[in-house]
């Protein structure tokens, strides 16, 4: 089987052949010549029309391709922007969360001693009073005041006074049990909360606290290191009573400890 010539080539050859026939004077009088001439011209016009059509169609094609490309680019760009926005926004949100945690910590902690502050203690006393009421298990509460603290500040300066308070706080923390709680009640006053603890056990714990403070080494206060001691008022919370009554009772006991010579515990 003979191979078919390429159609474009075949057409080209056909066109050349027809041109040659039309140009040949031998066929001038052929009755088919005029018809062939007209057909040949019509063919040329059709070819040109076809070429134009393809050009226009290609143009549209290109346009739509550019359009979809630019849409894809815009989409990618918006996506990147959105990711960036979310990233930055998340960072702000994180720093706000951390700030709020730090604020909460600052609101409940005494910055000098690192212990809970009065607000923290009040919250815990409320909680503990409710728990005591529910479970009918009393807790013990002690208020501690450092003896003659003002003289330390006056004699050695506030910085020395602050250092002394920090060490006292540490001594209290070391002396109490793991589940007891202490905090700075204000100035040189500390509060110790002993959950689910009867008075006689509580007394042993706060006695350890008193001794711990008495044994503290304050030789860093150069001239004539004074002996620092503390007085404590200890009481039991009776389930059902207002916690302010418990606090007042401990306060009263503390006053007694002060007036009866200091460096001691009065239990009521």
């Amino acid at each position, binding site marked *: 089987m003979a191979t078919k010539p390429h159609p474009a080539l075949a057409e080209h050859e056909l066109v050349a052949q027809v041109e040659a026939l039309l140009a040949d004077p031998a066929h001038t009088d052929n009755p088919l010549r005029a018809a062939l001439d007209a057909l040949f011209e019509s063919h040329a016009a059709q070819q040109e029309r076809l070429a134009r059509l393809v050009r226009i169609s290609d143009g549209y094609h290109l346009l739509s391709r550019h359009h979809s490309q630019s849409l894809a680019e815009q989409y990618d760009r918006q996506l990147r922007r959105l990711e*960036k*926005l979310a990233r930055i926004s998340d*960072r*702000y949100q994180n720093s706000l969360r951390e700030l709020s945690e730090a604020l909460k910590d600052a609101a409940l902690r005494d910055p000098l001693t690192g212990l809970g502050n009065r607000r923290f203690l009040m919250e815990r006393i409320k909680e503990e009073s409710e728990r005591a009421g529910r479970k009918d298990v009393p807790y013990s509460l002690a208020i501690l005041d450092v003896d003659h603290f003002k003289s330390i500040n006056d004699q050695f300066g506030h910085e020395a006074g602050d250092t002394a308070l920090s060490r006292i706080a540490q001594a209290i923390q070391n002396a109490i049990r793991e589940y007891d709680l202490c905090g700075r009640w204000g100035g040189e006053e500390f509060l110790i909360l002993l959950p689910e603890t009867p008075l006689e056990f509580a007394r042993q714990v706060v006695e350890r606290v008193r001794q711990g403070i008495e044994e503290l080494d304050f030789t860093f206060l150069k001239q004539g290191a004074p002996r620092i001691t503390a007085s404590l008022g200890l009481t039991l919370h009776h389930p059902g009573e207002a916690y302010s009554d418990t606090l007042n009772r401990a306060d009263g006991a503390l006053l007694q400890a002060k007036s009866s010579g200091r460096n001691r515990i009065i239990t009521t």
Partner: protein
Amino acid sequence: MNDLNIPGTQSTPCVTALREQGLLTMAGDSYPENSFEFFRDVIAWIETFLRDDTGPLRLELRLVYMNTSSVKAMMDIFDLLEEAHTQGRPVQVDWLYDPRNERVLDLADEFREDCTFPFRIAPDGH
């Protein structure tokens, strides 16, 4: 085109825009109830300045906290600057942060990404 002088509030930054100096400053927190409305004037000022003036534009920012829509507005602003920059207009951003709050440095750095114009991040007062 007027200069801008928007005093800061608790939730919106203080904004000043001086046409003579080609300087726009923003300082403070930004979490307006309607960010679109708040930033519309700022963005309009920048667009007008870039269109009607020929001088350089500098943004001096001391922004601290921003809500999400404010972040988006700032990204739009930086896009305007980027466009002007690619057309050869001198623009720059100086983002100043309180050295006690280094988080702002990281945040400003995130904003700077993709910006090809001069974008300086520096501790305030240096």
